[in-house]
């Protein structure tokens, strides 16, 4: 009888862990489900001109520069066309005053160098970025060979052009190591 009472008292003394474990598991499940692993972002770094700004004079367009115009064409679902001035055909001396790069559909657009191709979603017809890249590469090589200087690329874009299109051009310039990349600004009042 005495032994039985002792055993009973010993069992009563034990701490009840079950509710604590329940709560701890609830917390664990909450954090497991709510934790979100943020995908790392890439950053395309750039510098605005140090010596220009509010008092910038209008700079005349140099023939040696590559000027790309991204134009929003509002027909149907809309499209972005890319034109360049003073187009120089690779392998010939002929200079065309205006040249429009071909169009490709922007849905599941294969984009990037052949060994690192990805699908990009833009949604509407866009200029053929492969052709633009090949042209910029050709112009950069010939410009550096002739003048020994960096090729300046000027990009003008309509306000309605989607950011992805401008970023794709910026990305191409990064890939071709074009450092003099200029985005045209509207005139300040």
């Amino acid at each position, binding site marked *: 009888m005495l032994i039985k009472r002792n055993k009973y008292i010993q069992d009563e003394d034990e701490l009840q862990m079950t509710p604590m474990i329940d709560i701890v598991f609830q917390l664990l499940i909450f954090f497991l489900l709510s*934790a979100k692993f943020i995908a790392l972002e890439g950053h395309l770094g750039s510098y*605005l001109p140090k010596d220009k700004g509010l008092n910038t004079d209008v700079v005349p367009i140099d023939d040696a520069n590559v000027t790309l115009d991204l134009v929003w064409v509002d027909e149907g679902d809309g499209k972005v066309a890319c034109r360049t001035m003073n187009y120089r055909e690779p392998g010939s001396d002929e200079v065309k005053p205006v040249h429009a790069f071909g169009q490709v559909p922007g849905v599941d657009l294969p984009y990037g160098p052949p060994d690192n191709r990805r699908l990009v979603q833009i949604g509407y017809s866009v200029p053929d970025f492969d052709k633009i890249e090949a042209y910029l590469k050709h112009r950069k090589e010939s410009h550096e060979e002739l003048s020994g200087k960096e090729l300046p690329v000027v990009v003008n874009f309509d*306000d309605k052009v989607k950011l992805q299109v401008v970023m*794709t051009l910026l990305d191409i310039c990064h890939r071709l190591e074009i450092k003099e990349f200029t985005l045209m600004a509207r005139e300040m009042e």
Partner: protein
Amino acid sequence: MAKKRKDFRFDEKMDMTPLIDCVFLLIMFFILTTEITMTQAELELPFALEGEAEKAKGDDTTIVLDVPLKRNRGGNLTEDGIRKGIGQIEYLGNVYDEPELVKLFAKEVKYDAADPPYGRGRSPEIIAGGRRLSQIKVRVRADKRVNAEYLRTVFMACQQVDPAIYKLEVSSEQPGDN
């Protein structure tokens, strides 16, 4: 003999201590690594193959601007909104237009240049012509579907403050494994 039987009874119980230890460690891990991001919006960033991977955080000298697509009153995106690409420039959850952005930048560059404890004490770089340049960096996290005009608005605002901001970054989505 009776004593031995009693010991056997105690051995039958499962020892919960290591389990609880592990569970507590997991909870501590999640509590410490979970970041409650109130200011960064969910954005479909533009894709770029050449973007430099994000470095360690903790840099408070970068002004991060979000440019999400504008939402309707119910907080949802609309087909028309996506098609037109209308967005808004946000900083810490507040919406800024160009003049307000200039005011914000002016305040930030002033704070950056002021001596501690009233600022960071990072004196502006002075270049030929007496133009002053701030050490502050501006990062634009814009949805790929918004119009590129917002990028231009930010660039213009950067040039309108004194000292001017010239360090800029545009966030992009990194190539995945697909």
